[in-house]
């Protein structure tokens, strides 16, 4: 220790200071850190994120986004059982509850909210009845008239029956029309629908329409199918329903193959699914050409004629759009 430590107030502030030192200390005291308000809290500076934290932050953002989307989706598809659907347009009725009918008069339309998964536009002179409504299961019956539905939900949530015909939404937009005699039409504007009649069922993709009667359904045709194609398919449909003449079927199928364009591939596939035996004729190579696959695979052709599911699946996967990708039609959500 220094000899003068005990007497040096400049060294030890606890010692009494002389006048000059005391004056300087008092004068400068306001500048001390303990007197500066800005220094009372810990420093906060938005530091640069460490490089290895970037992926974690990305994951956190992705997780938050996924959680948000999942929550929105869960909210969208949830609907209390038996709760009525609100009407979005002016009408004598304000809502449509399970068991209730909604009827529109001449020149009158109605717009109904389908739970939280979509909307349904009911044309003039139509009668619809809400059969059931709960999360994942919303069913309507079209007794007569025309309904246009736009639904964005997982497959099977929404369906319309029309006599013996049932149409189940696979995440799509479609129009269903039914006349007084039970015949009508179905047109799919977006996505896919699954259509049932009796023990038969078929998928109908966007851009296709079909006609049905009280007990039969035609093959779907493209909206822009040529008159020749429409006529050929209609004749083949009729023959398949009413005649067991295989030669007649084959002749009419050949006419369809001649009238078909490559874009009609789904109609060709539908006809070959309805009557797999037709794969022995002109429809098989025409569909192969449309799908750009070889038509000389005799094993595959024979398997198709036996309605072999694996053989059908190979060509089915060649179709440009697939029914299980309902979420790709996200625009229908708005």
């Amino acid at each position, binding site marked *: 220790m220094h000899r003068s430590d005990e007497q040096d107030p400049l060294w*030890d502030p606890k010692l009494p*200071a002389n006048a*000059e030192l005391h004056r300087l200390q008092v004068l*400068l*005291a306001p*500048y*001390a850190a303990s007197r*500066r308000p800005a*220094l009372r809290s810990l420093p906060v*500076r938005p530091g640069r994120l460490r490089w290895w934290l970037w992926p974690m932050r990305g994951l956190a953002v992705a997780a938050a986004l996924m959680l948000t989307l999942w929550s929105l989706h869960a909210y969208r598809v949830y609907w209390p059982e038996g709760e009525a659907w609100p009407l979005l347009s002016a009408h004598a009725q304000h809502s449509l509850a399970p068991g209730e009918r909604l009827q529109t008069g001449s020149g009158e339309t109605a717009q109904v909210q389908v739970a939280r998964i979509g909307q349904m536009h009911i044309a003039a002179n139509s009668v619809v009845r809400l059969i059931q409504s709960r999360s994942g299961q919303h069913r309507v019956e079209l007794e007569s008239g025309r309904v246009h539905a736009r639904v964005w939900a997982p497959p099977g949530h929404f369906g319309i029956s029309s006599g013996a015909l049932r149409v189940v939404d696979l995440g799509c937009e479609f129009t269903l029309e039914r006349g007084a005699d039970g015949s009508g039409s179905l047109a799919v504007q977006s996505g896919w629908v699954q259509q049932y009649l009796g023990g038969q069922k078929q998928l109908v993709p966007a851009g296709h329409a079909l006609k049905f009667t009280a007990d039969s359904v035609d093959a779907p045709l493209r909206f822009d199918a040529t008159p020749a194609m429409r006529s050929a398919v209609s004749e083949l449909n009729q023959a398949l329903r009413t005649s067991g003449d295989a030669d007649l079927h084959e002749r009419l199928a050949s006419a369809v193959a001649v009238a078909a364009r490559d874009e009609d591939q789904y109609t060709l596939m539908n006809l070959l699914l309805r009557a797999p035996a037709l794969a022995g004729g002109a429809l098989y190579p025409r569909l192969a050409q449309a799908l750009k696959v070889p038509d000389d695979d005799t094993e595959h052709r024979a398997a198709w004629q036996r309605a072999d599911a694996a053989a059908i699946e190979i060509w089915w996967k060649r179709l440009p759009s697939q029914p299980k990708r309902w979420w790709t039609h996200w625009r229908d959500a708005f």
Partner: protein
Amino acid sequence: MYRRYLPLVHGLLLARFRPAIADELTQECFAVAFQRLGQLRDATCFGAWIASIARHLRSPDHAHEVAMDEHFDVVDRTTDPLRHAEAAHVLAVIRSLPDAYAETLALRLIEGLSGPEIAQMTGLTPESVRVNLHRGMQKLRESLGAAGESNAPI
């Protein structure tokens, strides 16, 4: 840690910058130090290490906007404005001294640290601190025109 070394960092910065800028750079210094804490090998050298960071800090770009006038840097505005002016003048004189003297005087006269505390925190030897204190005080007196007032040890 912040409270303990705050007077050291602030005092060192007051020896170079106006108070408002010193306040801002004090925060900056600790933010940098906490970010680089992993680089400190010996925890007992924290004082010397953070002092080194403080000495390398530069005036912020907007320094001219932060404190155009030394008078505005004084916290307590209830006292005599003349005293504020005098304090600002003494502080400016301290800043004009060589760094070794200015730093030691700022730590002692403004922050109230003792000689041993200054030595321990900065890593300087007590002898160096003592020399800097007394020579710095002498220079301050001369600059303030009070050199002949007293020859007695303060």
